[in-house]
């Protein structure tokens, strides 16, 4: 009797919920390296969500994609402002870590070139923190 062929799922609906993995911030590189070994070879995204009322206010969201099983995996870690870099695990994380540093001020330790990427170099503050004001100019409407 022949063993059944291993069938790879050819498709998977896009709206299926994304698998989420929690990680401690310290173990992030190890977690991502393990997932990369398990087939999640494509780096998709890194971003943060700010909860200013919490002591560890930044929720880092890494997104990986498995080319074999056609699914995304989200890795979550919480930090107060420091995290190890994963740009040596996925080269693609480089620019995304710079963006999170620029927008939230999260310090990625060991990053080869952690400097602002979107805002001007001499900008003060980190604009996407939720306690930063929106800014902008008031539009004046005349009554008559």
């Amino acid at each position, binding site marked *: 009797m022949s063993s059944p062929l291993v069938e790879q799922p050819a498709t998977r609906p*896009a709206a299926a919920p994304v698998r989420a993995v929690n990680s401690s911030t310290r173990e992030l590189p190890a977690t991502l390296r393990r997932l990369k070994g398990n087939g999640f070879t494509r780096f*998709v995204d890194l971003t943060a969500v*700010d909860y200013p009322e919490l002591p560890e206010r930044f929720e880092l969201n890494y997104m990986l994609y498995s080319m074999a099983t*056609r699914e995304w995996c989200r890795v979550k870690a919480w930090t107060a402002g420091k995290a190890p870099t994963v740009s040596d695990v996925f*080269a*693609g994380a480089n620019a995304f870590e710079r963006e999170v540093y620029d927008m939230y001020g999260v310090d990625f330790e060991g990053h080869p070139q952690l400097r602002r990427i979107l805002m001007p170099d001499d900008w003060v503050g980190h*604009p996407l923190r939720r306690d930063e004001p929106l800014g902008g100019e008031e539009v004046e409407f005349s009554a008559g």
Partner: protein
Amino acid sequence: MPADLLVSDRPEILHINLGPQHPSTHGVLRVELLLDGEIVVKAMPIIGYLHTGIEKMFEHRTYLHNVTMTDRMDYLNPLGNNLAYALSVEQLFGCDIPPRAQIGRVLLAELTRINSHLVWTGTTALDLGANSVFLYTFREREQLLDLFEELSGARMMTSFIRPGGLAKDLPLPWLDNVARFLDMLPSRVDDYESLLTDNPLFKERTIGIGQLTAEAALDLGVSGPMLRASGVDFDLRRANPYSSYDKFEFQVPVRTGGDCYDRYKVRIAELRESINLCRQALNLLPPGDFRPSDRKVVPPPREELGSSMEAVIHHFKLYTEGLRPPAGEAYVGVESPRGELGFFIVSDGSGKPIRCHERAPSFANLQALPIMAQGGLVADLIAIIASIDPILGEVDR
């Protein structure tokens, strides 16, 4: 912070800027270069010149307001951005979209893909000195923009795909015009190909230029036509079908060379596939509703307001508070003309998202520039930037 990132101790190395105000950089991209004569020793893209804080503004506007900002991120693919945003918001709601809206969305997304690839073909040929192709592709693009204007009233920033379906129904005369446009287009694509595909000058400038291996592309987060030109058979429309793409039959063009010429071939093949997809969508488009009947997402029709108290409440809530998706987070990846595009939205149940992040394909794809440009000529750098197809609106957001 130091302005000069790249330094060399060799005195003959020249340190110059390409851009940001150079037409060949497809927007306001600046590339810092270290040159040894004509050879690029190192190239470093510097971005941020078009940063407008869209992700910050997302957090201060309602879910429906935000649709208009997604148009302006990738200004060559506005309807594709609308679609990605709408799918994420709908994932939060968990609402079903009627088939007519789903097929209509595919039609609109593919028409914008044609639009984007037409602009890409024209501008890339222009960068490499083939001026006439630019005029031809923009002639067809103009007709496409006229179609969008006829449908929505806006040529580029249509905001036509919204959470909960479409802004309005697709009218029959418009569908006829689309069919006429699609009948005309394939012979025009033949024209572009006759000017470029076997053109010895074009081939000289693109074959073997800007090589990118599949491993490097995956590691860098590169997606879309760039990834497929490097030999990776991956397209989200087929791998993770959204918005009823699983009902369509289409090929995913893949090339293995990983150079600028293969990226050109992949995009031209995709252009033809998109025409095919649009035709299928016209045939598949079923009659019926173009938005769901879920009153939490779509306002009740005007005539119900006179007779139903519940309709009045829904109407009032939707127009004062906007959409209020349940708390949670959502991400739906879609295949934009440049690669994987997705909106990561976090909702706390209020009328405004607490975080809305765009995973922009050009942002990740641009990271491949230093690898592809290293060791090549400055003139080849122009071809390489063009082959990435960066849209600075979505790179900088």
